[in-house]
């Protein structure tokens, strides 16, 4: 219960520490609900360790699924606080009932059958070695994927967004090259230069963008954006263009589509 209340406190305080929240939340979700509940319903029952473990995890799953529907049907939404309140309520409730039932069981506690064994150092050592090897295996696969070879590339885009009488045109590019890359971009509106910027340096995964706000009634016949690598100034590296959409002028006759194809 104390652990659950601590987790509740962290969620209510909106502490954004993922490792801390993960360590606190995992037992709250996958162990405590199932454990507390099966202790309530099987107070006088003999369960071996494996069965307890199976009930603990299986019932925890079931209660989480149930919780999703409970919150969905309630006035709340599926957000951290309602979830944590739900888990707190069921864990505390089941724990209290389990404690009451346990104290009220007659003539001493029921027999509980434990197998107690002290493992040898060799056995524990072997388990530790196995865990370390598995850790290396997982780390190795992540590392290989992080550093997987790829042909570097860059993206260029030009996307319009219609807003009443204006078209917002977003022009941008992102680098997925192998190293820091320097770019030159030009944006034209019917051959007239709108933007000409050079020596834009991007590290891999970094992006650059700009927005143009163009009234519909003066939207050009064509907008073009060209991206160059500064190292190759005469070669167009990427190119995009934009024609006006007929639906921007749905109530006017300003655009006449030509047949073709």
């Amino acid at each position, binding site marked *: 219960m104390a652990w659950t209340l601590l987790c509740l406190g962290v969620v209510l305080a909106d502490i954004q520490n993922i490792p801390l929240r993960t360590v606190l939340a995992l037992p709250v979700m996958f162990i405590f609900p199932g454990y507390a509940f099966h202790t309530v319903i099987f107070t006088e029952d003999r369960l071996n360790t494996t069965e307890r473990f199976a009930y603990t995890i299986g019932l925890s799953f079931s209660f989480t699924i149930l919780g999703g529907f409970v919150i969905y049907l309630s006035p709340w939404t599926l957000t951290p606080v309602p979830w944590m309140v739900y888990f707190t309520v069921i864990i505390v409730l089941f724990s209290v009932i389990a404690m009451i039932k346990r104290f009220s069981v007659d003539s001493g506690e029921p027999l509980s059958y434990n197998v107690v064994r002290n493992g040898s150092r060799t056995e524990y050592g072997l388990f530790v070695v196995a865990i370390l090897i598995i850790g290396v295996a997982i780390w*190795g696969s992540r590392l290989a994927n992080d550093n997987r070879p790829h042909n570097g590339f860059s993206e260029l885009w030009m996307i319009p967004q219609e807003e009443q009488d204006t078209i917002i045109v977003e022009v941008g590019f992102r680098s997925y090259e192998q190293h820091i890359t320097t770019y030159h971009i030009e944006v034209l509106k019917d051959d007239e230069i709108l933007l000409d910027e050079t020596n834009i340096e991007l590290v891999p995964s970094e992006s650059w963008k700009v927005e143009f706000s163009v009234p519909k009634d003066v939207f050009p016949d064509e907008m073009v954006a060209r991206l160059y690598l500064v190292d190759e100034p005469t070669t167009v590296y990427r190119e995009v263009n934009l024609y006006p*959409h007929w639906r921007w002028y749905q109530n006017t006759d300003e655009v006449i589509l030509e047949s073709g194809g």
Partner: protein
Amino acid sequence: MQTTKTSPSYLGLLPYLSVSSALGLLCVSFAYSAAVESYTWAGIFLWLGWLILYIPNAARMLIPDVARSERIGIILLLGFSFFLIKAMYSPLEFKFADELQHWRTADIILQNDTLFDENFILQVSPYYPALQIVTTALSNLTGLPIFESGMIVIAMARIIFVLGLYLFFEKFSRSSHIAGIASILYMTNPHYQFLNAMFTYQAMALALLAFALFAYTRLLYRSDAGHKRGGAIVIVLALASVTVTHHVTSYFHTAMLMGWALVAIMIKQKGQKLFVPIGLALLCFSFLALWVTQVATITTEYLGESLYHVPNDVINLVERIQNPSSGGEVSTPQIPLPELLISMMAVGLISLGVMIGLFFIRRRYRKNTLATLMGIVGFGYYASIVLRFVPGGAELTGRSWPFLFIGVAFTLAVALVHLLEMRKKVWQQRLLYSMGLFGLIGIFLGSITSGWPPYWARLPGEYRVAASERSVDLQSNALGQWARESVPERTRISGSFTIYYMLGSYGEQHSVFGMGQAITSPRFGARERSLLRNAQVTYVVIDYRMTESLPKRGFYFDTGESSEIRENRIDMEALQKFESLPQTSRVYDSGVIIIYDIEDASLLP
């Protein structure tokens, strides 16, 4: 008062098996890393890793005098190791199409904080939201992204799956030996390693099914009133959980309970409480009927398509067997000859083993309801072999394996255990043991050659044309991220199979299937315009790498595309036709992937 008992060697060889299994995993990890760097010998280490992982554990499990705790440790170790193999294949993001579908449902729930909102790339998924409920709950509480949360959920599901199945087998067979062997035999289900370890609703449903089966048998074999009341509550929770997690699993669940009830009525096992299986079957059916008719009404339409052609296809196959000269199409697996031989060997071993197992079940378990039921389910394996050769039957066979193998595994385990008991002389026992072990290994190898991923995607590596997860690379990931950030949500976009899933999931767009004809045709005529117009497609995504080779998976865009498209290399000029279309904007350029806005062009007369 507490009694304690010290028990020597309750872990047995488990510590040593842990190290050997870890070394097997390390081998697999090395194979994956080498494959990413395009080393051709990577495959050797992959097979080596699998064998190092499976053989010692299988060998130990076959031995009769192994402690129960050790057997449980072995199945947990092996089951979780297989999950890690899949996790190491794609440790940074989901790559499999099925996972991307469910990622999107989880993403929608996190964005909208509610359930049942539409998912365009798997419309039925929001109506079976259990997987996403648990995943988004974890994500909400921890702050972890969907991928990490999903991996934790599936890892926990794998644990309960392995444990639940073992306890289920053990309860009615009353033998930890049979239960242990059945559990590791279940792991030779061709879908176990990857498909049932993916972030999919079936993976979670199977785990909940195993838990439910354990709960049923525990109720059945306990007579005290206290357990009955508690057990009944657990059962209601378990039943409901399976029902709201996955459609096919819930159907199998219901069918299995009905089968159990029927067998119980026929056999009248001594001490058997008939009301348990009958009550369970009725309760399960009620839950299912309620869910399908009141909430997940889309299910019938979704599944109906897969099942619609099967009866006719089976009739056609029977006719062709009776009259071979009638011709017609028979579906055969497209894999290299050595793997085909291994698969056939495995089929032969399973078929023989099931026959022997059925003999022993009839002889020694004829009054055991659940054992008999498992035998009947195992017998269904023969039907699945026939179905495999029906066009479209491969998918149905694949869908049935996770369920059929519950019966197959038990039946085979009965065969193995009772064969091993038959001979008393040491050399005979050793011979039988060796044969049993080789049989297990053969079936395990067959599960790999028959399973997913296919041979050309078994190792991660560089991009391949229309190769499912091998087509997911940095280019497609970048496209998905860009679409999410820059394109208005739910814009209708069409492209190849991989593009469909990337943009429909990570890209948050309304992906559209079925535009292969319009994209690959050399002309942009009335037919092409009509296709795109009727589908209301705004953007067409052209991946020029599609021209490099034929599709590995057998199709570029979707399973319904014509043979004319799938059997020929795509013509570069056909893709370039969009450059010269009037009013067609080129809105995205990454060098190999170009996106065209064809909304206006498709409206041309």
